[in-house]
């Protein structure tokens, strides 16, 4: 019998602490046959499990162009993420996926790309950024605007430094007022304000935005003012999920199952959904 609820086993190959409460796992699928054939697309998610504690939903944070490992980042919030945090390198977790749709990066070749992320919202965006950077010649201008509450809350510090050092991308980092520390050379201000200041051009550009709801709420009018069309703004929703398979009934918004019809949506898509985000 094919068991759709059965996860693959994955080994935690490497642990990176991003912030005091956010951690990244580099994972290797244990079965070599599965590891060889496994593939996914930027924006898809998975169910990660600690046996005895349960499953939790996160995006795959690494790019599909980097095939010898998978990464996920999680913030310690609930039962499963607390249990994940207790694990060590070499330990085994369950991995079920990839699920859901993806960012249509193939179709968007030839365009400028604008990434806007806040806090842990950089995890799903990072996967897209790395994918775009690995296909750098297929896209025009690449702009990354990323903010967090404080310098300590910025995730993926290693990647941020790498992106900042590259001449072929524009990387703007910001922290909320009061969140700066000595030596901070980035912006100070909320993400919407910084987006307005940087004023990326909307023409021939697609935007990927992910972060806390309040950040998205105040950034959207800015993007509209800059001339971005709803169908050129992509985001990824992270509703509470259990099965990831369009069955358990939790993640729906209207007749859309976020786990199957999403998690990637354009703002034009979201406008057609009932106001129940």
């Amino acid at each position, binding site marked *: 019998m094919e*068991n759709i609820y059965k*996860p693959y086993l994955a080994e935690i190959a490497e642990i990176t602490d991003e912030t005091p409460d956010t951690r990244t796992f580099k994972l290797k699928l244990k079965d070599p046959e599965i590891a060889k054939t496994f593939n996914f697309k930027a924006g898809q998610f998975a169910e990660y499990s600690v*046996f005895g504690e349960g499953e939790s939903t996160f995006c795959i944070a690494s790019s599909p162009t980097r095939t010898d490992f998978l990464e996920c980042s999680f913030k310690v919030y609930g039962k499963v993420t607390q249990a994940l945090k207790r694990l060590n390198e*070499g330990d085994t977790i*369950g991995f079920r996926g990839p699920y859901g749709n993806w960012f249509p990066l193939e179709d968007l070749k030839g365009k400028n790309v604008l990434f806007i992320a806040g806090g842990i919202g950089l995890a799903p965006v990072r996967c897209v950024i790395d994918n775009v950077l690995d296909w750098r010649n297929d896209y025009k201008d690449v702009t990354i605007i990323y903010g967090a509450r404080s310098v300590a809350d910025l995730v993926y510090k290693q990647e941020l430094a790498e992106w900042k050092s590259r001449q072929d991308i524009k990387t703007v980092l910001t922290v909320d007022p009061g969140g700066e520390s000595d030596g901070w050379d980035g912006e100070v201000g909320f993400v919407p304000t910084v987006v307005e200041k940087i004023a990326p051009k909307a023409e021939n550009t697609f935007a990927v935005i992910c972060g806390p709801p309040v950040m998205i709420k105040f950034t959207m009018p800015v993007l509209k003012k800059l001339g971005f069309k709803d169908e050129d703004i992509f985001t990824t929703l992270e*509703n509470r999920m259990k099965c990831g398979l369009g069955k*358990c*009934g939790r993640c729906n918004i209207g007749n859309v199952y976020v786990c199957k019809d999403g998690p990637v949506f354009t703002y034009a898509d979201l406008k057609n959904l009932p106001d129940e*985000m």
Partner: protein
Amino acid sequence: MEEKIITRENINGLCRDIIDSGNVMIAPGQTEYSIVKDISQIALDARAKPTKASYKTFVFPKAEPILYYKRGKNNVQILDPEVEQKQTVIFGAKPCDTNSFGILKHLFNWDYKDEFFNLRENNFIVIGLMCSFSDEYCFCTSVGSSPVSDKGSDIFLIPLDGSTFAARIITEKGKEFVNEYSKYFTDGNSAKSEEITKNVKLPAVAFDSKEVHEWLGKNFEHPKWEGVGDLCLSCAQCAFVCPVCHCFDIVDEDYNYTEGRRMKHWDGCQFGHFTLHASGHNPRDIQGKRYRQRINHKFKYYVDKFGEILCTGCGRCSRGCAVSIDIKEIVSNCKD
């Protein structure tokens, strides 16, 4: 349609045969559908009140293991559970129950196939029984069914008199069943059963489901949702007794320090924690939004997605509601 006759005495013989051969037999009792051990449990009374809960637990159990795990040092072993593969005969199900699997099939099979559901469902033989019960909560006729609907039945029984039943053969599965147990059936005369089904008193049609669908599409924001939400206790009994509610949770259950099982178990969209994000954000943070989800899921979303109403009109949710929320009344008022 082929029709046979079976006497009450032969039904007893048939049921005894099924039980003796090691197959599972399920029948409605006074309050529940349960596995029949003794044939006197089989009432076959068309006038009986619907049981408190439907029989969905026999294909979609309240709780079932989806895997077993064993934790070792740096490793985990996963074992698949066995799904018992026994022919299961449900005898005397009401039409508002028989069509439930057909509705649920879409959900358990769109794209990803839930074989736990499918294996059990494939092993089911549904022997429906015409219904001549009706109370203020019944509304099968408003959701496209009726007390004489054979939808979802493999064989459909119509009581001709106290001691004989017409047995209409509805599906190929039903035909095979009748062939297997042919000694209990004799040839029938459909004129009499036709007359009986024509004379069954139908529950009045309470609403037009197409109009309700249209109204729901325009009234996501409406004061009635908060109104009924304030009344609701969020206990989710309505979901648990429903033949087609199917929300579930996935939870790990340790036996000891190294072993345990992952369970898939019933859940309900009326619980506040159902959609609660780890961050504390909750898209359906008040009961009114959760009740709105319940009605919309049944009469709009499921229709849009799978082309069927997620409701059989059995009225169990209303009959069992501790605060007398009546779905028929609420849906009937989904109009301007």
